């Protein structure tokens, strides 16, 4: 990598905006091409990419999920039947 960990990226703000667009699935093809070429050369942005990806993975996999109460659908449908 040309840009090692100790050299700050001089386009970091732009890269961080692109990083969010890319991980959120909102980046255009040209933005993706620029970004992925850039992180191959820039260690700070590469590390930021890995960290942000890991945060999203942890959120998706580790945030507790609640079971829907067993009677909820029945309650809703009963109330609707009363109104029809």
């Amino acid at each position, binding site marked *: 990598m040309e840009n090692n960990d100790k050299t700050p990226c001089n386009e970091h703000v732009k890269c961080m905006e692109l990083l969010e667009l890319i991980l959120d699935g909102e980046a255009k093809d040209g933005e993706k091409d620029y970004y992925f070429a850039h992180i191959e050369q820039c260690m700070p942005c590469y590390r930021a990419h890995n960290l942000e990806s890991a945060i999203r993975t942890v959120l998706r996999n*580790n945030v507790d999920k609640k079971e829907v109460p067993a009677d909820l659908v029945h309650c809703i449908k009963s109330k609707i039947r009363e109104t029809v």
Partner: protein
Amino acid sequence: MADNDHPQRYSEQKKVQIFDGEFLPHIDAMYNFAYRLTFDEDDAKDLVQETYLKAFRFINSFEEGTNAKAWLFRILKNSFINDYRKKSKEPNKVDYNEVETYYNSEDANAEITPDLRVEALQDMIGDEVTNALNSLAVDFRTVIILCDLEGFTYEEMAKILDIPIGTVRSRLHRARNLLKDKLKSYAQSMGY
């Protein structure tokens, strides 16, 4: 999403078919969203029930085959703001002027080398991540739930929250930095 200027005219049988086929499959996501907003199982149940009853009442405004999940989330969010947030003790108000200018601030430039490490994140258990998310103010928590847990696009989030896409992006950016700060604190307490 529905075009309120051109409502449908569904038969009673068709209404039930749409309700069962397009609305009810989202009940799991709806209940979890409601719980993450209220932190109370009974309130979450009431909020979901109220949302589905409203959805049925206004079903003629929904165009069959369009984005039912986003439509339902929008109704739930509005019900939460109107009926539940008022009685909540949580200090939810966010200074949006501060949020909107965030991308241009020096703070945004300062986060060059995040010292939270991937290994620390991978060692976290559900409770720590859930607590970090739950500790965010509701407006920040909401955008992370919608984007990262439910996978809505910026455009869908803008419609659900009634805010411009630029505001969705800046709020999301700020929310993620706040979440990162919380996760960093957990990582430090774990010895990273």
